């Protein structure tokens, strides 16, 4: 576990955690490239709709706004969870993480509705290059959120069982970075896929 430094927040208190947080930032660099590539491909294929519908024909502002508010709210609540963690309140940390994951699940539900809608209006993943790129980009983000739900649950179990210590604090902090990152990606999806597509 290495030396413990008590002058910094719990998640930074061990060498092992410092390495993990740094490594995770590096991983986020790779994630930026991953989503960057997806966006670039989307922009290349955006107008290539073949015989299928265009974005303006299938996008619905309602669910998209709902998704946006839900995900932004969850980014706020994971921030509160980290704040609670730094104050040392296990109960508040768990509550805010719970709310975050609940919001994440709500986001996924709306997204599933949205996907069903796309398929229903004839914009399945095999319809055209545009729909392939659209659903793959959204789907990759959605899979990340889904993975985050499982990950968050496993961290909550550990906090509940072992309390807040350097290990669980480090994991929670890394999870919060991941969650914020997904929110940032969504802002790009909202602005450059939906708003641009509807205009």
């Amino acid at each position, binding site marked *: 576990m290495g030396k413990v430094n008590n002058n910094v927040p719990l998640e930074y208190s061990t060498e092992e955690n410092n390495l993990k947080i740094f*490594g995770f930032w590096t991983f986020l660099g790779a994630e930026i490239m*991953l989503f960057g*590539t997806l966006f670039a491909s989307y922009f290349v294929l955006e107008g290539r*709709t*073949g015989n299928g519908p265009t974005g303006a024909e299938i996008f619905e502002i309602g669910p998209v706004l709902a998704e946006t508010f839900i995900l932004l709210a969850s980014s706020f609540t994971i921030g509160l969870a980290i704040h609670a963690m730094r104050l040392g309140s296990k109960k508040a940390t768990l509550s805010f993480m719970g709310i975050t994951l609940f919001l994440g699940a709500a986001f996924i539900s709306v997204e599933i509705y949205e996907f069903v809608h796309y398929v229903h209006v004839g914009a399945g993943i095999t319809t055209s290059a545009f729909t392939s790129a659209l659903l*793959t980009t959204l789907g990759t983000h959605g899979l990340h959120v889904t993975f985050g739900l499982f990950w968050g649950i496993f961290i909550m179990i550990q906090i509940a069982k072992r309390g807040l210590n350097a290990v669980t604090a480090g994991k929670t902090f890394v999870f919060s970075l991941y969650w914020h990152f997904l929110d940032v990606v969504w802002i790009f999806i909202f602005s450059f896929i939906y708003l641009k597509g509807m205009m």
Partner: protein
Amino acid sequence: MSEFFAQFAVPHPSTLIYIAMASIVLGSIALVAIVTYFKLWGYLWREWITTVDHKKIGIMYLITALVMLFRGGVDAVMMRLQLAVPDNGFLDAQHYNEVFTTHGVVMILFMAMPFITFFFNFLVPLQIGARDVAFPRLNNLAFWLFFMGMGLFNISFIVGGSPDAGWTSYFPLADNEFSTSVGTNYYMLALQIAGLGTLMTGINFITTIMKMRAPGMTLFKMPMFTWSALIANLIIVFAFPVLTVALAMGTMDRLWDTKFFAIGDGGMDMLWANLFWVWGHPEVYILILPAFGIFSEVISTFARRNLYGYTSMVWSMILISVFSFAVWTHHFFTMGQGAFTNSIFSITTMAIAIPTGVKIFNWLFTLYKGKIVVTTPMLYALHFIPLFTLGGVTGVMLAMSAADYQYHNTMFLVAHFHNVIIPGVVYAMLAGLTFYWPKMFGFMLNERLGKATVWVMSIGFVLSFIPMYITGLDGQARRMYTYSDAAGFSTLNMVSFVGAGIMSVSFLMLVWNIWYSFKNSPRDIGSDPWDARGLEWATHTPIPHYNFAITPDVTDATSEAFWDSKKNGVKLFKGEIKDIHMPNNSGQTFILSVFFFIGGFALVFSMFTLAIISLIGILACMGYRSLEDDHGYHIHKEEVELIEKKYEKEGGAK
């Protein structure tokens, strides 16, 4: 039932493939029998498969790389044999397609990549005075994912058929319509799994180098190889996700009929070419920069002086890494992107020659002021400089986009990239292998045999590839499986074949050297047989699993800390021995990667139930790991002192 098994049959069988199948089956049975007879399973599992020791993981990469060098080499010889005489019937067109595809993939991704990863693993922690990498278990997982990807790719030619759309796998050729066998599925999924492992390596080593350097080692005091490793790993982290996305799209196009690269419905085949080379060009520098790092270590050691122009070496590598992302379009100058785009990419491509030239001159100045000792590693370096420069010059020729319309898709191009990759990467890897062999295994490779190997290899190389420049300029297309006598390529192609044969001999000489030296070389060589300069030589041979009993302090030293301690009396090991914290071994990572292998295999054959089962297995492994509490163990002070005493008594080290 018979339908189920029919899908695994090879679509274009031939005698050669049947022989390969039989030898693989017999070889596997023999291997299992030997391991069982000598009761080695437990040893393999405890000491190797589950290991988190960066040195052992490195050696596993090395073994994989050497085996793949053999496989890719056999592919190469088959191609040269097929082209040795006009109208040859040794391989038919389909088999030739498969052979050049697998030769390319195997050599780049499953030979060169593990070879440099071996050096990352083995050397970087030693050079920066660390006990291990930042994430030892991730390191083990990265190896096994890479290994499973490699395995998946290699079984393609006996189960279901090899990929045959070229190592670049351009669409629409790689789509179902033109590549009907499952071969290209193998390509997409095997590269995906191995690429995940590579990304993990990248993250691991960036963290290791940035966060775990010995006290006093600032960035500009890092040994040159560590610098090259840092830059190469940064390129890995930024380039590999692009490949991940491209391969995912390619897989979906083939398995689920999405339209990314399709011919109709808006699909765009050029998107594949762009994405592939946005990864593929930086990939070249992921390979060559660590190779430059190795040459820098070897040349400064055997010129007996410090490297000329350390700072300019570092900055030129940084510049190369930036440029490497700005040149990908030169891989398709002739695909109709217009003069303006071609000009931009032509200029950026040529610009890379500048920092590379700086490096060449730095090596030359190091030699010029040095007292050269010609050892085997140094001989590789001395052959590298002129041969690589020739490859660089033909590279600048190819970078002229207008002229490229002549060279495009000819043997000239093939000659060029082999001319940079073989003297650049392969020579560096073999130089480094010979150089660090005593550190790894405690005995030297035979010098006479080693030097003879270098000469035979260089003669073989020149005979193989220089004729291709000429036939290429004369219009011999690459990937063409045969030609008529009237084309006039016969003599030069025969010379190439002879060259390939000579290069094979040099490979056999390397293998013989390892065996011969294992039998005959003395074992009392100490820890510094070359009179070398870096921190990696400051520990015992063989290296104890904690690397350094006391973490070295290089505050008073330069980038060549060990040299400073030998010649100027700089004290590296201050303080006293304390308890050492080490990570535990783990078998979970291996199990996890087996699930990846099964999942990949299932997707190749569209067996989705099995794929979902293995996905659940993967998630279960990750969940288990998440809940696990494992903080490693401590080697107690007394135990370390005992080990250190033992080393001193045997005289194995300083």
